[in-house]
């Protein structure tokens, strides 16, 4: 696959946090690709490192985080020409190289719209800020653009709302504003970090529809971090399942949902409530709890909770096997398949 097709290519990303003089590796050898114009869903329980992975790529982590990767390659497509950016080589997380990309190329929608907006500025000004920064537009022009964006995102009475403060907005409307901030410079890649977790269900559906529209109609590439399997089924083209900082299964939506291979993914899918659950049928849970990332045993992190665990699982790090083109699983059950990086 060439750089025109792949927008983001991450190889062997490791993120380590230094706390209390101890080093804890939260993200381990994570590799994945995002295809241009598609949606990738990153799923897993809370604390599995999915947010940290994305924040590592955008370089939003604090100074106590150490980010190492063989390659984090972002391929920008402008006027039919591809420009490659090697993000792992950028030293200063908030330096000019990184800043130039944030907004016009890649942007992020955060989890909690309540706290993602600065309470002391008008929403319109907050949306316009990035635009003015990157295009040097005059305030008046920028305002027109913001109004246009508000209309596109379905914010009612944009002329009036543009001069309101965040506290005058409902949660769903705030998230639309956050999306407007992410969208205003027309980026190609949008990373959505659990964009609907903090919202109620009906609003969730609206926001998701909005994002799907952006992807399908405007050809945006979207990375959706979530733990909601329902959303994944609706939104994603490809799915990346993470557990304890590792990618345990990666493949197309059909691969992961219909030809589920990793025991963890199977357990995850079984624990999703579905309408029409038979009377008396109990919703399954995954036994045990996630281990403490600070003191892990060798071998597969899921071994203690896995129904199909063998002695070999606890020996050493598990490699990844490609069981069909593009469908990769990190589990010894598939050791007869070719091993991949």
């Amino acid at each position, binding site marked *: 696959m060439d750089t025109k097709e792949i927008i983001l290519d991450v190889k062997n990303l490791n993120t380590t946090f230094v706390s209390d003089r101890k080093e804890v590796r939260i993200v381990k050898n994570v590799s994945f690709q995002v295809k241009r114009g598609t949606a990738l869903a990153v799923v897993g329980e809370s604390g599995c490192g999915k947010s940290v992975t994305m924040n590592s790529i*955008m370089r*939003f982590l604090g*100074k106590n985080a150490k980010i190492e990767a063989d390659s984090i390659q972002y391929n920008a497509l402008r006027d039919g020409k591809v420009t490659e950016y090697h993000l792992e080589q950028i030293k200063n997380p*908030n330096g000019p190289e*990184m*800043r*130039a*990309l*944030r*907004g*016009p190329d890649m*942007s*992020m929608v*955060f989890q*909690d719209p309540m*706290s*993602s*907006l*600065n*309470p*002391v500025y008008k929403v319109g000004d*907050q949306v316009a*800020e*990035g635009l003015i*920064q*990157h295009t040097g537009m005059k305030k008046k022009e920028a305002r027109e653009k913001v109004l246009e964006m508000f209309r596109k995102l379905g914010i009612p009475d944009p002329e009036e709302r543009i001069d309101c*403060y965040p*506290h*005058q907005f409902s949660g769903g409307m705030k998230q639309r504003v*956050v999306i407007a*901030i*992410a969208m205003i*410079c027309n980026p190609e890649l949008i990373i959505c970090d659990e964009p609907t977790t903090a919202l109620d269900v009906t609003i969730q559906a609206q926001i998701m529809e909005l994002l799907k529209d952006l992807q399908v109609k405007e050809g945006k590439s979207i990375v959706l971090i979530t733990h909601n399997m329902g959303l994944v089924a609706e939104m994603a083209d490809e799915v990346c399942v993470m557990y304890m900082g590792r990618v345990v299964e990666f493949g197309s939506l059909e691969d992961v949902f219909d030809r589920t291979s990793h025991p963890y993914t199977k357990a995850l899918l079984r624990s999703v409530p579905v309408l029409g659950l038979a009377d008396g049928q109990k919703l399954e849970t995954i036994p045990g709890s996630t281990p403490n990332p600070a003191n892990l045993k060798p071998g597969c992190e899921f071994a203690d909770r896995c129904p199909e665990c063998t002695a070999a699982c606890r020996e050493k790090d598990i490699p990844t096997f490609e069981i069909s083109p593009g469908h990769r699983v990190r589990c010894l059950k598939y050791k007869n398949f070719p091993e991949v990086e």
Partner: protein
Amino acid sequence: MLKFILKKLLMMIPMLLVISIIVFFGLQATGIDPINFMVSPEVLSANADNVEALRESLGLNDPLIVQYFRWLGNLLHGDFGYAFDGTSIASTLAVRMPYTFELAGYSLILSAVIGIGIGIISAIRQNGIIDYVGRVLAVLGQAVPQFLVGIILIQIFSIKLGWFPAANRVSPGATNQFLDAFQHLFLPVTTLTIGMVAVLMRYARNTMLDVLNSDYIKTARSKGIPEWKVYLKHGFRNAMKPVLVILMFRIPTLIGGSVVVESVFSYPGIGMTMTNAIVANDYNVVMVTTLIIAATMLICSFMVDVLNAIMDPRVRLGE
């Protein structure tokens, strides 16, 4: 906004009334008889009738409640009464109040600028040199009693070096009034400022660190704006509010501190007036000075409320 200001202003009135009641009846409860300070004991025992007439004419035999309202009425007319030595309290205060306001005002401005400035820089460059030095100084500034700082400053700058006078606010016959004021104010203002800076610096640093951890700072960074804009436009602006509030809470300490500092530097302000009055049991003066200080406090907190409202749209547009 106007409604908000009016409401806050109106709320000050009952507050002041309650305080005046506490001050008045509290000090009446001490049972100090002003007559004892006006008339010597021998005269007192010799002319019991005359003294009784004096009491009657001063209104000391009226019920307390009547005395209270008379006192309050006089205050409202600008008649602050007389100290036991017969001087008019109003005229004493007219000279001394501005002195205290000078002392506290300069210290407030100076410590706000220095404290908030260093605090913000320490937060941005966390664990840098400024942060480290600032933290050590803050800890020391909070540990050494204020009057001791004053004494040390006097020892170094007035006695050893002779650069600044150790006492008073004006030198008799000074020609350059500005220079004279500067010389007399320098040490007391420095003393007061050191303690304030220590607290403000710490607080500004921690508040700024908190703010820099908030989600909207990440949002700001996600727009690709330069770091200084992230810090000043998004960080500082939000950190200002809690810092202003703490500044308001520090004003009492500042005025309390000026009482001590005035005592160290024999600085003739309202604090020294009050201290001397308490030592001399001159409760007329104690009542008026406490009331004035309390009123000043209320006005300060009112101003911070208004400032707060201007800065925070949630308060400004609320209701």
